[in-house]
């Protein structure tokens, strides 16, 4: 007798046999397996919400620390990059340099205004050149207020070399320098510290007992590596020389920009030859000066930051590894705990790949959710840290870090999920069904 032949009223069993051919089957088994696997993984993660959270905690912490760390360092690097852009990639700084042994013997190398003349007259291709004389930190007074600021003696061309422009008033001029005029251009921090009016032009401040008239206020520049570029007072170079007294040999820095960036290398070499000659250095002597380009400085800082990122990344990578092992542990326990369920699934038709996929996707989804949560937390920590530390640049989370963190989470999920999943898939249905 055939089931299809039975004619019972309201007979789903018989109808089921007949209708079976009519039930639609999926056309793309792989897509079906993935969507069903993800559905089942999400179901299982939700069913064990607290355990899932604890399992993913390792990944959450790992990813959060990667993202927080990278975003802070990248923010720093990004800010430094911008500062250097302001400095101009075609600028060169020449400064005196004394090796430590020489310094211990009391010999201090210096650059003098003569060196400046030499370079400006004998080197071609220089766009602008300026001496910078610094006395380090000095006291500035205004009325009853006193503030410390970095005091620099320089010339008109410093404006172009260092990209310093005035917000109000004017910059130092050549005639200020020629006539040793008692004038000063100040930065925003100095103005604030001295409680000067919003437009301080025309006010008088006192440095080393000398009265100086403020002729300009600089555009705010912010900080670079903790050095406040706005806490500066700029004086004409010649005025600075007078103020510091008749020190026998003033030490200056020379800042210059080249007209054509391609000539950078040859100009650096030319300056080196000239100065070695002028300072009477023999072929075996080391340079008693240092020539630094903005590019070089930036590369140095970049490479330091890259190394820091890599080292920290390595440490954090280990924490992700530990998180992955945690996931594997829990998944193995979960397989044992669900042995009977696996047996049931096999009895009702689950194949090896169904079970493998289910557990693998569960680990993967768990890791990816952990990764996303970690990403959000890390982003928050980075932004919070950057905003809590005064003057710290804003955190910057690069896309590669996001991709890396999520990619790493996924890899951790697959690598550490495969063993428990394989264990589950290979369970024997009969003994799993008997498992208590």
């Amino acid at each position: 007798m055939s089931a299809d032949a039975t004619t019972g009223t309201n007979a789903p069993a018989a109808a089921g046999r007949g209708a079976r051919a009519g039930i639609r089957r999926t056309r793309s088994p792989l897509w079906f397996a993935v969507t069903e696997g993800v559905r089942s993984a999400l179901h299982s993660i939700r069913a064990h919400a607290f355990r899932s959270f604890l399992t993913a905690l390792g990944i959450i912490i790992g990813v959060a620390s990667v993202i927080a760390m990278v975003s802070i360092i990248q923010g720093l690097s990004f800010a430094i990059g911008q500062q250097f852009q302001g400095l101009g990639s075609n600028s060169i700084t020449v400064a005196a340099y004394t090796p430590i042994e020489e310094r211990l013997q009391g010999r201090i190398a210096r650059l003098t205004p003569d060196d400046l003349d030499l370079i400006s007259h004998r080197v071609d291709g220089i766009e602008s050149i300026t001496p910078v004389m610094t006395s380090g930190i000095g006291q500035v007074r205004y009325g009853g207020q006193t503030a410390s600021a970095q005091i620099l003696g320089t010339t008109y061309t410093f404006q172009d070399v260092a990209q310093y422009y005035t917000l109000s008033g004017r910059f130092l001029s050549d005639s200020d320098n020629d006539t040793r005029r008692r004038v000063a251009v100040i930065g925003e921090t100095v103005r604030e510290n001295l409680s000067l009016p919003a437009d301080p032009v025309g006010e008088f401040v006192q440095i080393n007992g000398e009265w100086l008239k403020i002729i300009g206020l600089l555009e705010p520049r912010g900080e670079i590596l903790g050095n406040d570029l706005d806490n500066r007072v700029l004086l004409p170079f010649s005025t600075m020389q007078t103020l510091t007294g008749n020190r026998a040999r003033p030490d200056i820095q020379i800042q210059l920009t080249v007209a054509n960036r391609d000539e950078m290398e040859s100009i650096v070499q030319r300056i080196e030859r000239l100065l070695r000659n002028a300072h009477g250095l023999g072929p075996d002597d080391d340079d008693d000066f240092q020539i630094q380009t903005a590019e070089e400085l930036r590369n140095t800082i970049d490479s330091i930051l890259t190394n820091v990122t890599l080292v920290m990344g390595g440490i954090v990578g280990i924490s992700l590894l530990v998180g992955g092992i945690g996931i594997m542990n829990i998944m193995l326990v979960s397989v044992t705990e669900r042995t009977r369920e696996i047996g049931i699934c096999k009895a009702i038709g689950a194949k090896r790949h169904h079970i493998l996929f289910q557990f693998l996707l569960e680990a993967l989804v768990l890791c990816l959710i952990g990764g996303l949560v970690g990403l959000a937390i890390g982003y928050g920590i980075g932004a919070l840290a950057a905003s809590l530390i005064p003057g710290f640049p804003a955190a910057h989370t690069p896309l590669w870090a996001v991709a890396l963190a999520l990619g790493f989470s996924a890899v951790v999920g697959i690598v550490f999920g495969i063993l428990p999943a394989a264990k589950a898939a290979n369970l024997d249905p009969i003994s799993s069904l008997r498992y208590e």
Partner: protein
Amino acid sequence: MSVIRLEQVSKHYVMGQHVIKAVDGIDLTIERNEYVVIIGSSGSGKSTMMNIIGCLDTPTSGRYLLNGRNVAGLNEGELADVRNQEIGFIFQSFNLLPRMTALGNVMQPLIYAGVPLADRRREAMRYLERVGLADRADHLPNQLSGGQRQRVAIARALVTGPSILLADEPTGNLDSQTTVEILALFDELHADGQTIVLVTHEPDVAAHGERVIRLRDGRIVEDVRNPPRGATG
């Protein structure tokens, strides 16, 4: 064509020096729409035979033709397909997936059959209605009584439209009232044309079958037809 045809089927286990003959040369034919009860004490080989018929296990020798197809030589994946399409399992301890609703449990075999969600839901609801549990579709197993759980398990077993319903002590964990209800449901399904193989050790349950096969030491010792139930009273 017979639904089940066992030819000299044996399952021997080697335990050290001894060979344990769990099932020993069984010949058995079950026709479509038969209601067969396999009865035997523990150790009689009924569980092993059940596993072989249910394609959970393969015999060490002999042929097993399911709907004319020899399943003795199938690999694991093919056996899974056979279990999914041809066999509907019902267990003594219900064996529902604990974290899935009644509906989810009934839909589960259809996932392995590759049926899309909407169709799955519709089919599963149809069978939940059939066992009278449509209003409990979103209950978890632990929110259901034993009888209700077994009904869900029956709906799950039927949902792929299997050739045989294979029930292993289906009333072993149920009280006498619920046992009567579940056995009545089996009778209905049988009346609707379903082939049923029921394994039990209780003579009361065995009385519901059309045909009773008694196993002892892995062999069939008795194969009788019950008189029509109306006649015995």
